């Protein structure tokens, strides 16, 4: 446990005064994400510890440097969990890094994304001011939602000091079903299930098989499994963990292969792209391991009404924002980090 807020604030203030870039680092588990950074390293990992946890209020507040594992262990000991089951991508994952990257896990479309669970945040903005937004209650409509704006901002809008999260009870019972089918069939099945109130908490199609996880009360889960059919999988926990952490064989990249993340409307039919696909999140997230050109992949995603992100592998990120939105995002960045010192990308 350590409260290093003041020390971190001093560092940011100094950097602001000097106009010197800062490279914010938590556990370094998501360094692969995005381009390389320049600037002096600001180690937030030292600012750690659980600030408060009220199981009956379903709220946990922790410092940004707290290891994600520590938080999950604490929650599990009280029969609770982080609803969106965010990936760690490494043992050193911290709360701050998780929030800054904004990745959610398989449960996301069924309970909400990481951003949906953020209730409030305490940050240091690019001027070195410590600011608190949101709070510890779910409903808080005072001021603009700056705390949720931090999610997925990759540290470019502020240094996270503390985050308050809504937590959920662990499901009483879970099981996973498996079906053999092709990609198109999988997409339609997911659409069909999404139109019914079934206790689905994760879906994934890869290698000609569709996996569905059901979570809830034993009664509900067993009844649903009965009506849905499919083969019941044992040791399914490993499957979903491997998928989330991308340790599953699907994600193994040969040299020159790249991993893309496509975010498309869930009902989108299979995209005609070279490589192998994993369809997740009810169809809304498609992983693509491919040698295809960046342009063809970006075009395919755009054509489907979505967008693509280069997740792992060498290559330039393409700006997928319309000019108006891109300019707005620049202005927002400037509002929070006027000297442009936070997590500056290598040019």
């Amino acid at each position, binding site marked *: 446990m350590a409260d290093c807020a003041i020390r971190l604030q001093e560092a940011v203030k100094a950097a602001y005064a000097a106009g010197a870039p800062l490279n914010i680092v938590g556990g370094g588990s998501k360094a692969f994400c995005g381009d390389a950074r320049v600037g002096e390293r600001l180690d937030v990992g030292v600012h750690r510890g659980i600030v408060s946890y*009220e199981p*009956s*209020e379903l*709220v946990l507040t922790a410092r940004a440097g707290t290891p994600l594992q520590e938080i999950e262990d604490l929650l599990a000991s009280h029969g609770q969990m982080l609803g969106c089951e965010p990936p760690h991508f490494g043992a050193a994952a911290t709360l701050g890094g998780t929030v800054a990257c*904004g990745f959610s896990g398989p449960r996301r479309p069924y309970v*909400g994304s990481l*951003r949906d669970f953020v209730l409030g945040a305490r940050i240091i903005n690019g001027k070195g001011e*410590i*600011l608190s*937004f949101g*709070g*510890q*209650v*779910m*409903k*808080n*409509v*005072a*001021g*603009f*939602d*700056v705390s*949720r*704006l931090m*999610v*997925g*901002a990759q540290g470019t*809008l502020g240094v996270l000091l503390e985050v308050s999260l809504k937590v959920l*009870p*662990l499901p*009483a019972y879970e099981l996973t079903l498996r079906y053999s089918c092709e990609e198109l069939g999988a997409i339609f099945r997911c*659409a069909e299930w*999404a*139109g*019914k*109130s079934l206790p689905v908490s994760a879906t994934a199609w890869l290698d000609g098989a569709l996996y569905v996880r059901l979570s*809830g009360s034993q*009664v*509900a889960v067993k*009844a649903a499994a009965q009506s849905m059919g499919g083969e019941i999988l044992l040791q399914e926990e490993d499957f979903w963990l491997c998928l989330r952490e991308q340790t599953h064989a699907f994600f193994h990249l040969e040299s020159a292969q790249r991993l893309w993340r496509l*975010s498309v*409307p*869930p*009902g989108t039919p299979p995209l005609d792209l070279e490589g192998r696909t994993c369809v997740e*999140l009810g169809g*809304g997230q498609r992983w693509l391991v491919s040698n295809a050109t960046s342009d063809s992949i970006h075009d395919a995603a755009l054509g489907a*009404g*979505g*967008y693509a*992100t280069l997740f792992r592998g060498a290559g330039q990120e393409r700006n997928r924002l*319309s000019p*108006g*939105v*891109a300019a*707005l*995002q620049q*202005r*927002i*960045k400037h*509002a929070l980090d006027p000297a442009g010192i936070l997590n500056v990308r290598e040019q």
Partner: protein
Amino acid sequence: MVLINNWPDLRQELLEGLHRLLPAASVISKREALRPYECDGLTAYRQLPGVVCLPYTVEQVQAVLRLCHQLNVPVVPRGAGTGLSGGALPHEQGVLLGLARLDRIIEIDSLNRCAVVQPGVRNLALSEAAKPYGFYYAPDPSSQIACTIGGNVAENSGGVHCLKYGLTVHNVIGLKILTMQGELLEIGGKTLDAPGYDLLAVLCGSEGLLGVVVEVAVRLLPLPERAQVVLAAFDDVALAGEAVGRILSAGIIPAGMEMMDNLAIRATEDFVHAGYPVEAAAILLVELDGENREVSEQIFQVRQLLLTAGATEVHTARDEAERLLFWKGRKAAFPAVGRLAPDYYCMDGTIPRRRLSEVLARIAELSREYDLPVANVFHAGDGNLHPLILYDANQPGELARTEALGGRILQLCIEVGGTITGEHGVGVEKIDQMCVQFHSAELAQFHALRAAFDPSGLLNPGKAVPTLHRCAEFGRMHVHAGQLPHPELERF
């Protein structure tokens, strides 16, 4: 916003411009016709607008914004005018921009489980349109019969269902907005997320300050296989509060959990005749939905928990009609207290659930101190409190006393670790309390963010985020225990 002296000339120029851009039925300028637009659901604050515009199309909205930007005229957007924080209070020298005529449901997309609507579509109308497809739109503010989706986005509205299904921000997946300069920006769509910063999160709850919403894409949820509501009566409000905690601690997340105290029960029963126990100190309405057998199991558990917590009676709705009737009363609770008193002032604060009974006891004390009845309605599941102060505006001094009592209640919310608003927004009503909840650097950050969207500051000025000057003035008048709030701000 400073008032300008040559307003009559500017107004003339504005009207000429508007009449060129809009059909005659879209421009209202006669004083007689402006009056009904002088307030929204918060009638204690009234201001005649300069002009009212009621466009029919997005292009017309854009044209109005461009003209106003060019002439430096403020714009206040308005949906159905049901807001309770004065967010749609007009600007004396500005345009009140009504979006109610943009009322088309553009698409119900059952394959992608979403809908695309114009901002003037009523909340309930969306769920009604989605029903034949087996879907509904989850956020259900009590005013859902009349309020618009655009307004819901501006206020990040919640409602009974938000305990389980989230606020508006959790259910919006795309927005098209027009900036004050008239630029059309499209954010998100039918995908789970959008590239770049989470602008949807910032826009939800931005109270009409950052952009005018002209199209909304929302997530639709499947209609539950079964939905059932359990009504429990309590002799003591504190017991009801404890029962709530027990249900949540048991790992059950109901679809909705609402409480009403005796005054509220009586007023609503008079309207809806649902059979509420009018002698109870408080009733709890607990809704459970999902798969058939799971719901049965949860009903059983909930009933047990309620009884062991001290409920004097527990009643499961006998059929769908009764279930809807139980909710109809709760949803009409605010205006139904209009049967008890000519006026009501609805407070909106959020507190940690565990402090509920304590807060209610203190509100009862304050009610006696100020000699004004207070009916209490709340979203018990998330601690969002709506004390309704009953008063008579025609009695001299009563409105002032009411506002004073309201201020004390909000202060109480902050003291116990909550916030001054849960879902009704800040608007004009709570703008002074913003000075207490946030310090000046935070307020300055809000203004900087706002300037990123609207450098001119013409969109809904004077709402939601107070200027530092205002906080200095507020602080000057509210010296507390010898300490001046915001000591860092200069006084003039």
